[in-house]
């Protein structure tokens, strides 16, 4: 299991794709926002938590189609399916590798981008906190979407269409935590809901992803 994780991480770094690309996308979306809505700092600080969450979500989405596609093409997915390691575990490892290479950098970059958008000071902690709790769910849900569309030649757009509605609850609660945190309101309820969603998806969704992957490998 650890070998698989290390292999995925190594591949992600070497290919250079997912790792830098997601971050660059996050940066560029954040930079474009003031151009679109105007430079008033009060407006920017109001929308900052939501924009940062949406940017992180889109950056995550962007890297999903590479999650399984490479392994599918070179046949290592078939090997994984026949390996003694249960496919559910393999899928979870894949999601974990995706989170480590995409989700975690996004979380770490978010506060710096928050400065650009004039995020209120109490918001920084809650932004990082909510992203830290929310991004694993995005990786796990994304793995499910990637497993659904893995056999398709042009699955990228379809993948977005399938995954985005599934991201709705995570986005709502996550952005709510960040927004409430930024305005100094209590954040416990949405934070708990967010954590609940993440825990439930991590516990249950790998089974669906593995089932879907088995169908696709049939």
């Amino acid at each position: 299991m650890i070998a698989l994780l290390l292999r995925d991480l190594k591949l992600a770094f070497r290919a250079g794709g997912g790792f830098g690309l997601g971050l660059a996308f996050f940066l560029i979306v954040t930079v474009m926002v003031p151009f679109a809505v105007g430079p008033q700092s009060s407006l920017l600080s109001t929308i900052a938590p939501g924009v940062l969450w949406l940017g992180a979500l889109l950056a995550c989405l962007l890297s999903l189609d590479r999650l399984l596609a490479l392994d599918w093409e070179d046949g290592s997915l078939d090997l994984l399916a026949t390996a003694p390691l249960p496919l559910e575990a393999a899928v979870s490892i894949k999601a974990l590798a995706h989170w480590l290479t995409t989700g975690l950098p996004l979380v770490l970059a978010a506060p710096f981008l928050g400065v650009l958008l004039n995020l209120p000071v109490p918001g920084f902690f809650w932004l990082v906190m909510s992203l830290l709790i929310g991004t694993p769910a995005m990786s796990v849900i994304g793995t499910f979407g990637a497993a659904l569309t893995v056999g398709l030649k042009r699955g990228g757009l379809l993948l977005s269409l399938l995954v985005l509605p599934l991201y709705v609850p995570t986005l709502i609660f996550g952005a709510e935590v960040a927004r409430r945190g930024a305005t100094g309101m209590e954040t416990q309820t949405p934070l708990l809901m967010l954590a609940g969603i993440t825990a439930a998806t991590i516990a249950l969704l790998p089974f669906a992803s593995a089932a879907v992957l088995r169908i696709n490998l049939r």
Partner: protein
Amino acid sequence: MSIAAKANALWEYANPRKFLATSERVLPFFWVASIACIVVGLVWGFFFTPDDYKQGSTVKIIYLHVPTALMAINCWLMMLVTSLVWLVRRHHVSALAARAAAPIGIVMTLIALVTGAIWGQPMWGTWWEWDPRLTSFLILFLFYLGYVALWEAIEDPDTAADLTSVLCLVGSVFALLSRYAVNFWNQGLHQGASVMRAGAITGTDTEEKVSNVFFYPLMICIIGFVLLFIALVLYRTGTEIRARRIKALLARERVGG
């Protein structure tokens, strides 16, 4: 071919046949009954009910809005059930019925959204309000789109049936989750504003005040839309079965010829 395989093939074959024969027999009844009910209900509602004292004549939109909204949700439920049946029993008709139902669900959701927006314009002063109910329907609409797109994208029919079924199951859970999330989200924004409106959308407030006048034609419309849904599903499932058979025949022709 072994006996077991033969029996299996027969089972697979005979059932769609039986489905086609049965649906052919009952379909005329459903078509006539559904269209009759909808016409009667709509005409009754449109021409022979008084205006609501608060909402004026816009209350007449209820005869379209409520039945389609109901069917939009019931259609997804039906797809959920047929998907489960497919996954457990490998019943081909079941998977095809789910596929046949999805576009109907899209249209029903669309009608509910459009009539809701048109209704909301004079009542709330805006075409679109991020009210929990409206938002959930929009999300439901997105789920339908994804489901249909996945069916269209996959070549092999059995794989497509399996994958869409799993998507339907997972999607149901997330749709339900979104419903609660959206409720929470909007209350967080502006408290209490939607409480007053919820009654206006579901028609519960009109029922309480002047129940019978609006209620009977509404009931007839709902029955009509349910019948129309059944007719459409039966008809479209028949189409899917035939399309599937063409594919199988052509494949056999290629192999044989």
